């Protein structure tokens, strides 16, 4: 099971600023290991953010997003105390959801 995402969501005026650090190898499929064998591609393909049952952000990624991805986005229409949930799915079919409270 991958490590939880670190999610920070702060209300600034009407806008919620979300910053997330996501633990993932993000293997490109281009890299060779110590024995010279290609390490198979393994990376996050989609990431969605929902708040109050509403999808507020969606990302589709290729292999060239950096290892342990950092992501920031901004949305309106939420209050301090509301919960935001981030969910990712990777090329191996694994997925993980984590939640944060908007401050």
């Amino acid at each position, binding site marked *: 099971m991958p490590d939880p995402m670190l999610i920070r969501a702060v209300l600034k005026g009407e806008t919620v600023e979300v910053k997330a650090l996501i633990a993932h190898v993000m293997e*490109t499929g281009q890299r060779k290991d110590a024995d010279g064998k290609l390490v198979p591609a393994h990376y996050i393909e989609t990431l969605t953010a929902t708040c109050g049952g509403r*999808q507020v952000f969606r*990302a*589709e990624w290729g*292999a*060239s997003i950096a290892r342990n991805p950092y992501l920031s986005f901004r949305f309106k229409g939420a209050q301090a105390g509301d919960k935001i949930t981030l969910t990712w799915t990777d090329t191996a079919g694994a997925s993980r959801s984590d939640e944060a409270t908007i401050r």
Partner: protein
Amino acid sequence: MPLSRRNFMVTAVQASVSMLTLLAPRWVLAADRRPAFDATAIDAALQALGLPPPQDTAEILFKAPEIAENGAAVPVEVESRLPNTRAMLLLVEKNPHVLSARFEFPAGTEPFFATRVKMAETSRIHAIALTDSGNFYTTRLVKVTLGGCGG
């Protein structure tokens, strides 16, 4: 040939599929967008997404370092000032696979993102905004002193 039950069902399913295609948004469906991430050139990536070549604009704010010491994690921050920006694409011209990311902004979400990309070598990075009035792009040249796609 009389219309057998099987033939009828096949026709009905085909009809529903075409209806779904008609009802789908003007963007290619998510699953059908995956091949674009394997494209090795920008025009091929756009073609795979069913997008015409974008127009140059100064209305996309694009922050990226001029020189990146480490191509494994190059910070980029992009904000569109174009009205009704529905989605944005991030592409690294000289990477083995040029399309890095596609971000979607539902109503109420600002057309903004920040992330970090891998860069194989010195390259232009393109940010493309998909708006109701067409597609627009801007680019930044990032010099990489140590490539990142190897590890």
